[in-house]
């Protein structure tokens, strides 16, 4: 078993008929992901990429048995699409869309409360289970099936770390991007809980960066659990100037809060091994696994 995604995952694409949806659904199917249909309001009843298109998520879910959805809907309607999927009780929703208004994400978070949906993103590259399927937009080729779980705030660094882990003759159980925005669905700590419970995951790599409190939440969580799985973290932005937004909306430090030093200190205190540089992540997790024996 992997996390989030397995061979029984049946994927629905919201916004499939647009350019991004068409392109990435094609790539996902080439990878072996079981895509069962799409949703584009007003285009219900048509067929696209040889898949049925529906007007509404609830109908699509009922007709196709979809149990996961990927959202490519543009920012003005992305929140409505996510809320529709949540109301249709879709178990897993991955949102790739960038630049969703922050208050829309606040509303989406509100809609998630008490429901059964796991939301990944927005502004996420998605989920990859090597050899099984991808629910996202990442390039593939350097991944290989294995035991390392990756939880990341950065798509570009995930690709980098996947390649390093494969080069270290390890592989990945599942990779997940929580998204680059300040307000998003599933957080690093919740992902880590799932990875620690996953029988296929032997070790976990966290890719964090300046801004927010997710790494601190992870540190607090780890302090309270017992696990034999080694956890390695890379925190980037050590040398970033404070109070400047560095690419990601979530990546800025305010008044010394959310800086890299504080995150590294908290994680180290909780027993997480810190990769000293971005090029050493594969080697660091390999060593950590070897030392555990």
């Amino acid at each position, binding site marked *: 078993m992997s996390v989030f995604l397995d061979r029984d995952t049946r994927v629905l694409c919201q916004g499939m008929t647009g350019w991004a949806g068409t392109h990435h659904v094609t790539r996902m199917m080439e990878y072996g992901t079981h895509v069962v249909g799409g949703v584009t309001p007003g285009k219900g009843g048509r067929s696209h990429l040889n898949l049925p298109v529906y007007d509404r998520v609830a109908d699509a879910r009922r007709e196709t048995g979809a149990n996961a959805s990927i959202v490519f809907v543009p920012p003005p309607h992305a929140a409505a699409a996510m809320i529709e999927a949540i109301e249709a009780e879709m178990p897993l929703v991955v949102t790739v869309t960038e630049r969703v208004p*922050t208050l829309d994400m*606040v509303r989406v978070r509100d809609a998630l409360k008490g429901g059964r949906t796991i939301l990944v993103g927005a502004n996420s590259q998605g989920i990859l289970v090597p050899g099984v399927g991808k629910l996202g937009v990442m390039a593939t080729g350097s991944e290989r099936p294995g035991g390392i779980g990756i939880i990341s705030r950065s798509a570009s660094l995930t*690709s980098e770390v996947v390649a390093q882990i494969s080069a270290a003759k390890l592989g990945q159980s599942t990779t997940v991007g929580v998204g680059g925005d300040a307000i998003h669905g599933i957080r690093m700590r919740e992902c880590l809980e799932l990875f620690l419970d996953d029988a296929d995951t032997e070790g976990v790599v966290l*890719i964090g960066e300046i801004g927010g409190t997710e790494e601190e939440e992870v540190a607090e969580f780890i302090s309270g659990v017992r696990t034999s799985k080694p956890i390695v973290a890379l925190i980037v932005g050590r*040398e*970033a100037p404070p109070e400047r937004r*560095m690419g990601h909306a979530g990546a800025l430090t305010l008044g010394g809060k959310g800086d890299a030093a504080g995150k590294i200190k908290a994680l180290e205190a909780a027993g997480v091994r810190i990769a000293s540089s*971005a090029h050493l992540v594969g080697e660091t997790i390999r060593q950590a696994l070897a030392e555990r024996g």
Partner: protein
Amino acid sequence: MKIHEFQAKKLLAPYGLRVPDGGVAITSREAGEIAGRLDGRGVMVKAQIHAGGRKHAGGIQRVDGPEAAEAAANQLLGRVLTTAQTGPEGLTVRRVLVESAITAVRELHLALLIDSSSGELTLIGSAKGGADIEEQAASGAVRVNQLRLGAGREARPDAVAQFVADLALDGALHAQACALIDGLQQAFVELDASLIEINPLAVTEAGTLMALDVKMVLDDNALFRHGDLAALRDEDETDLVDLQAQRHQLNYVQLDGDIGMVANGAGLGLATLDMVVAAKGRPANFMDIRTTAKSLDIAHGFRLLLDNPSTRAILINVHGGGMQPCDTIAEGLGIAMRRTGRSLPLVVRLAGNNADFARSRLRNFGCAVIDCPDMWTAAAKAVALAGKGA
């Protein structure tokens, strides 16, 4: 998007925020005229820039009467104001806000923001306000109260009433504060704000709550549904280089070193920055190419680096992804190098999607690069080459 104090005050007035009488001036004569229309003797002349810490930098002056207001405006307008928040280059004062000076019997602090950990609209307040509130709160000298407001769409009158009581406001002031918070919550949601901060919120001698200073930030990602608010953007306040970068789907931050840096992805960019510093180099900038950038946008990005006279070497760290393969970036680099007269060492590290194709694109462009197998080697090489050029 940051907006000016005078814009925020104007935006929030219809939602029940009381502010001192006044107006904004772009010439000292106008400032004098506005001051002449105000009641009372005391006049505040306040520099309008997108940064706090104005008071300590002399950007806020209290004067007596119109002539003095005109003189203060004359001294402020056109001046470069350097505060703790502007950075060493400072910001040019192009407008002043001229207001009646208000005597505060008491000052409070009130803010609405989105708490990223809970994902909820959050009200923050303290019974004391003023310029040094952050330090006072950090040291524990002032208690900061918080109230979560969910998605901000429903009023929570009982919780707000308790919150206001905790700020030691009672009687008529209590009722005023509750109404004010209600209005601000509505404004926050309707205007897609990211921050509304009132500091100080004054209790006047007449017993009313009045905002003496307001800081407001709007959500850039929501401007598509607020054409009127988008017009509030002050392009003079945005660095020209920054503005060009934004137009070309790039995230750019100017730094003061000599190694121009490009990465595709914010995380990879931050990692590159850290590695250059670890290799004892000094980055000239941070640049992240967004996945939506096309090769011509990327060429503009390289041009920003080439136009920076401090740049002595360029480091390009690319991990081709599903949305943006390496060759798109190679093409951008090829175009930029054909157009420039400058010759700088180009250290590249290409991995991931279409890395080989990108190398052949660069060859076809006749673009000579130093190709490194991994990013640490590339960072170290760029640092060595920048040092050599010095």
